[in-house]
């Protein structure tokens, strides 16, 4: 089993690569379409802006092939990798893949909170999922983000987190799972989550 990590030019993909290899996984950095065929699962790392990620994917001709594979292979999106599944974001007027129509918005400016939302926050697990196996409700994971998903289908929302307002911190839909938090920076809890992803068979 080999896990592909999407390289869209501006991310911390090496932290994810290091975490997965620490757990004994075989990994491959995906920076061109042909490499997609070699992997069984996909991780879309998070960091950078949606606009530059989408234009980089287009430039390296990965955009359309990835769209197809996203529906087929077990897929884990992290942070920006969650936002990329949506149609639009307040972060510029960028279009993501548009599998879901809800908007990715900014933290409201009038809240008495620091933005970016940076640090360890609780993940309230709303529904069981294979990726949360042996992870207790209210476990803290590491977050770094300024944009968030406020509303989403109940059946596809797996956890929420509170920072000034409540937002959706993970979503799941058949072969797709995506988190606003960063498992690769979440210590033991993050490693457990990645281990669940490696074992996942949706």
């Amino acid at each position, binding site marked *: 089993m080999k896990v592909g990590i999407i390289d869209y030019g*501006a991310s*911390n993909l*090496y*932290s994810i690569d*290091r*975490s997965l290899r*620490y757990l004994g996984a075989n990994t491959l950095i995906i920076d061109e379409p042909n490499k997609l065929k070699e992997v069984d699962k996909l991780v879309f790392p998070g*960091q*950078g*802006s949606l606009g530059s990620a989408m234009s980089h994917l287009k430039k390296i001709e990965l955009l359309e092939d990835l769209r197809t594979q996203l529906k087929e292979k077990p897929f884990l999106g992290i942070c920006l990798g969650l936002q990329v599944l949506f149609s639009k974001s307040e972060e510029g007027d960028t279009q993501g893949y548009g599998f879901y129509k809800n908007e990715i918005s900014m933290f409201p400016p009038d809240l008495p*909170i*620091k*933005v*970016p*939302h*940076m*640090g*360890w*926050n*609780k993940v309230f697990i709303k529904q069981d999922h294979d990726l949360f196996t042996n992870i207790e409700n209210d476990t*803290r994971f*590491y*977050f*770094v*983000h*300024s944009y968030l998903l406020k509303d989403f289908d109940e059946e596809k929302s797996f956890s929420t987190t*509170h*920072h*000034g307002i409540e937002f959706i911190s993970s979503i799941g839909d058949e072969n797709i799972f995506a988190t606003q938090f960063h498992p*690769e*920076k*979440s*210590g033991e809890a*993050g*490693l457990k989550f990645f281990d669940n992803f490696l074992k996942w068979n949706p």
Partner: protein
Amino acid sequence: MTVAVRIIPCLDIRAGRVVKGINFENIIDAGDPVETAERYNTEGADELCFLDIDASYENRSATLSTVEAVASQVFIPLTVGGGVSKLQDIERLLEKGADKVSINTSAILDPSLVGNAAKKFGSQCIVVAVDSKREGEKSYVYTHGGKNKTAFETSAWIKIVESEGAGEILLTSMDRDGTKIGFDNELTFSIAKDLSIPLITSGGAGSIDHMIEGITDGKADAVLAASIFHQKEITIAEVKDGLASKGIEVRL
């Protein structure tokens, strides 16, 4: 119901080893970085901060290897600082596994470095470290490890880097550094109350109560300390228990 206060141990690195010294003198070896990082991780550190105290070319590459070795074993956020002066330095550190890079002297020499770095790598990975010293009623920013005074008042300088796109401020009180009499909470609060980005307070922590006061009085989002953790005077777990007993959110 909110994000936890962060406890950040800081490690001085030289030639690939953890070192400690008093006022930059009598520097002695204090262990292997990976082992030290693992110990802090086990104790519950929320992040780790590495400061490269010797920016010579040879040791810079040793620091890169150190960052890589730690990042392959410890999966919590790593901030690395010391001698970061250009975008290429940041890029190299991030490639090796740093999550955030702290900029100090070079930001004063060229404030646009902060903005350019934030644009290229994202605000979340650009920490501006500010060494501040009181002079009567005012506080001024110092560079070069506290050697050179600048014309910038601390609060004005922090406003500048915040608007340039810094993701976080690491504020060190030079007056308190090494004293173990507590953080300069008056200074910290005067900055934190008008700041939209997270603030880490540093300099002066000597007890669990000091850590608590840094949060309750200083309104910092995170506390950083070096010597009290190195010398095992208090553990990170004890600090967290102390904070939790006051109703402050921590990751236990």
